[in-house]
């Protein structure tokens, strides 16, 4: 078990004089690293200081300072607080920052995202292409001077919204056709790609179709998705097959991209809360928590006891229903004709009943507030939760265990396939059940406890094989551990207020940065929020576990069969609302 270590006094500026300075802006922490020394500092942090898990890489546009910043958050898998370090570059194209992919391969997709959204060129990145927007996209949408269609103002609430007590839709004022600005000479109707697919296909390695026995075989290129029943939404993987075996694979995403983060910057702090529901729409409760955590850190507000307990209860119920659905859907991916999925849905509905009772909505809960919760448990809900936790769910988890774990076909399909070593899993920034299945006991609830998780007695579930079967076992056991936490939380639930101070629409958030991260059912969910003292966040970044866990997809799939690919994608547990943001 990982024990959180005490904050070490690490003075990077003394170690790298001249190249590293402490970030002295008010409300900021961490270090500012010179671009030229980035790789050296990163290697030092990983190899000597033990910050082996790169949690998040993200860009920030400081338009008033004419600076573009790339922020790195690295953590130790043994637990404890992380280290923030930043690289600043002048805001003049081309903005170049060295890529940290050689140090942390897990930065791969994230750096592509920053290139796409901020236009920061990462020198040395193996495959720097747009990832969330389409190939013909003009500009980099997260830059502060980039204006979206129907642009009105930088920040909500828009002044025009209630002119004479009536809402005027943006579309009325700005009819379709006049709402977009294009580059000089760019006509969207006439735009032809210089074959963007070609770039994608060449990034799949070229294989000379020659086998050892000299017989030429054709490789089949299969587009799994975007319309495919097993990609859990509009996700696409381009797969090159040699017969049934996967030779090469590239994930293609962004079909559901809505620039969640830009919307987040336009919104006020509280307006963002319901938007977080839509990220991982199975677990709106945990999404709320991550965001509330980040903003509470900035505001320095404490959460009342009762609210903390209810938060834990909701988050763990959310985890149980996520894992139940995962088990059912995973079996569906393996072809099991909906029977396990429907068994799982039956239990999930009961949990959603509780969410509906407390939040008013089954899936889009929007239940958390900064410093507490939206409302208290209604009468009778606690009894329902008790019934579920103490009687029904434990038996159901056991039933799943009995029906599935020893199932010959399940074992044959899952065991020994897509093995991920613990070293690789950490290097690729995998988090959540996939990482724990590889044998790394890293659970943020234990590694850097948030809320009141330090009070509960539970085990961090690990397996050693790192294969798909291990991922299944980890999730099954995690449901039991969640029930264990739930029992303690219900027993300890105190009376009292559920929010600090009066509930308010407009919170005052002091300037600064904060990174709130929680152990979401799918992995580490992080929110990086920067406030400049205004009612809207200056930067709102979501570290989505579904997105970053896909970095290792190619590594996990190559050499396997096409039938395994579907199952591997299932065991990663992605959800497209969060992946494409």
């Amino acid at each position, binding site marked *: 078990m990982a024990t959180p270590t005490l904050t070490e006094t690490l003075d990077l500026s003394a170690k790298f004089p001249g190249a590293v300075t402490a970030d002295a802006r008010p409300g900021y922490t961490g270090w500012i690293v010179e671009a030229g020394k980035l790789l050296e500092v990163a290697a030092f942090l990983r190899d000597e200081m033990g910050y082996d898990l790169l949690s998040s890489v993200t860009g920030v546009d400081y338009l008033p300072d004419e600076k573009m910043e790339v922020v790195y958050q690295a953590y130790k898998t043994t637990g404890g607080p992380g280290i923030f370090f930043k690289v600043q570059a002048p805001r003049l194209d081309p903005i170049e920052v060295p890529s940290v992919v050689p140090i942390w391969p897990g930065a791969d997709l994230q750096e592509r995202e920053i290139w796409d959204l901020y236009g920061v060129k990462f020198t040395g990145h193996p495959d720097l292409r747009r990832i969330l927007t389409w190939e013909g996209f003009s500009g980099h949408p997260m830059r502060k001077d980039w204006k979206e269609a129907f642009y009105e103002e930088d920040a909500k609430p828009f002044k025009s919204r209630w002119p004479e007590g009536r809402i005027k839709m943006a579309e009325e004022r700005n009819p379709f056709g006049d709402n977009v600005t294009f580059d000089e000479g760019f006509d969207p109707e006439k735009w032809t790609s210089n074959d963007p697919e070609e770039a994608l296909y060449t990034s799949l390695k070229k294989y000379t179709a020659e086998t050892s026995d000299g017989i030429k075989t054709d490789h089949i290129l299969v587009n799994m998705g975007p319309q*495919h029943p097993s990609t859990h939404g509009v996700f696409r993987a381009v797969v090159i*097959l040699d017969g049934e075996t996967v030779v090469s694979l590239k994930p293609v995403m962004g079909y559901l991209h809505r620039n969640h983060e830009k919307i987040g910057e336009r919104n006020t702090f509280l307006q963002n809360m319901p938007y977080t529901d839509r990220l991982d729409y199975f677990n709106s409760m945990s999404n709320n928590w991550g965001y509330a955590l980040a903003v509470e850190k900035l505001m320095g507000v404490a959460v009342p006891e009762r609210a903390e307990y209810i938060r834990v209860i909701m988050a763990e119920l959310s985890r149980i229903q996520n894992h139940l659905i995962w088990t059912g859907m995973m079996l569906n991916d393996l072809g099991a004709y909906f029977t396990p999925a429907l068994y799982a849905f039956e239990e999930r509905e009961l949990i959603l009943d509780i969410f509906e009772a407390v939040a008013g909505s089954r899936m889009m809960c929007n239940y958390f507030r900064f410093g507490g919760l939206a409302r208290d448990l209604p009468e009778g809900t606690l009894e329902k939760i008790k019934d579920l936790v103490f009687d029904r769910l434990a038996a159901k988890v056991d039933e799943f265990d009995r029906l599935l774990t020893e199932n010959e076909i399940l074992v044959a399909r899952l065991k020994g396939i897509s093995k991920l070593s613990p070293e690789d899993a950490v290097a690729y920034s995998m988090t959540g059940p996939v990482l724990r299945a590889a044998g790394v006991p890293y659970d943020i609830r234990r590694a850097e406890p948030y809320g009141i998780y330090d009070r509960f007695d539970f085990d961090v579930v690990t397996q050693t094989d790192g294969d798909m079967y291990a991922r299944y076992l980890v999730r099954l056991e995690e449901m039991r551990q969640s029930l264990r936490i739930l029992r303690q939380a219900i027993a300890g639930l105190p009376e009292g207020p559920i929010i600090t101070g009066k509930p308010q629409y407009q919170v005052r958030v002091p300037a600064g940065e904060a990174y709130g991260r929680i152990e979401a059912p799918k992995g580490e969910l992080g929110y990086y929020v920067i406030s400049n003292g205004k009612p809207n966040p200056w930067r709102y970044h979501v570290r989505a576990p579904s997105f970053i866990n896909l970095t290792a997809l190619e590594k996990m799939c190559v050499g396997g069969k096409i039938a395994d690919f579907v199952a591997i994608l299932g065991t990663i547990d992605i959800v497209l609302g969060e992946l494409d943001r």
Partner: protein
Amino acid sequence: MNWANLPLALLYTLIFPGFLFTAIVGLLLTWVDRKVTAVVQSRMGPPWFQPFADIGKLLSKRMIVPKGVRTVGFISAPLLSIAGSTLASVIVFLALFDPSGGFMGDLIVLVYLSTLPAISLIIGGASSRSPFGAIGASREMSMVLAYEVGFLLAIVTVIVQTGSIRFSEILAHQAQNGPVLWSISGFIAAAVMLLCMQAKLGFLPFDISEADTELIGGPLAEYSGVGLALFKLSRAMMFFFLPVFMVLIFTGAPQFSLLSILGFLVKLLTVLVLLILIKITHARLRLDQALRFFWTKIGLAGLIALAFALLGL
């Protein structure tokens, strides 16, 4: 050839007990399939006419022939499939309703005809110019080679036991000497045949060539409208005549008494429910695993059944 027999032959083939009869009962049985599935999954399930509505809707839709397909193969494949099912069902049901009919070796012909739907899937998939179709076709090819071995071994066991390759004689033999099923070899052969039928019907865990969640239907991926309807119809017919065939060769034909007919229906339903339960409670095997299963376990079991039959057990 006697032209006077033509109307009767057409009647047999197209209406009763050929195409129309088998298709209607087959669709009703797919409703049974859906209802049983629904009960197991604690759902309500569709009304009885749902399969008819589905086929009707498909038939009313345009069949899209994608650009670049091999048109002849693409269009003829569903027809071949339905022809195979129709002719095979004629042989099975003539044996059931007219025990004196049939011809020498009709059992062998039946085995060939019953593989036609699988072969037409291969043709259709390979001509569809879709990678999913191509992979599905190659998977189906491997699967046919694997599961037909078990299917044949089970039939040969029955042939050895009853000493005839003529359907009506097998039935007559069982009417006198009791069902083949109640012998060691018969029992093993029946189990082998049940699992091979699971694969022949494209049911889980052996629906590898279609694999909705992997190949989005494999050979069927590019089919729409009439083409898809014919494939579905052919599947529904197989879902009727294959279980009937199995019940017939292992337990003999029913006599003309209410009890015997009811008994026959119970046996038929038992086979159907077994097939359905296997289908809805298992995940799909991978191609290599399924091939290994059929070549080693099923092949071995089939050989053991045959050996017992040769020993007279």
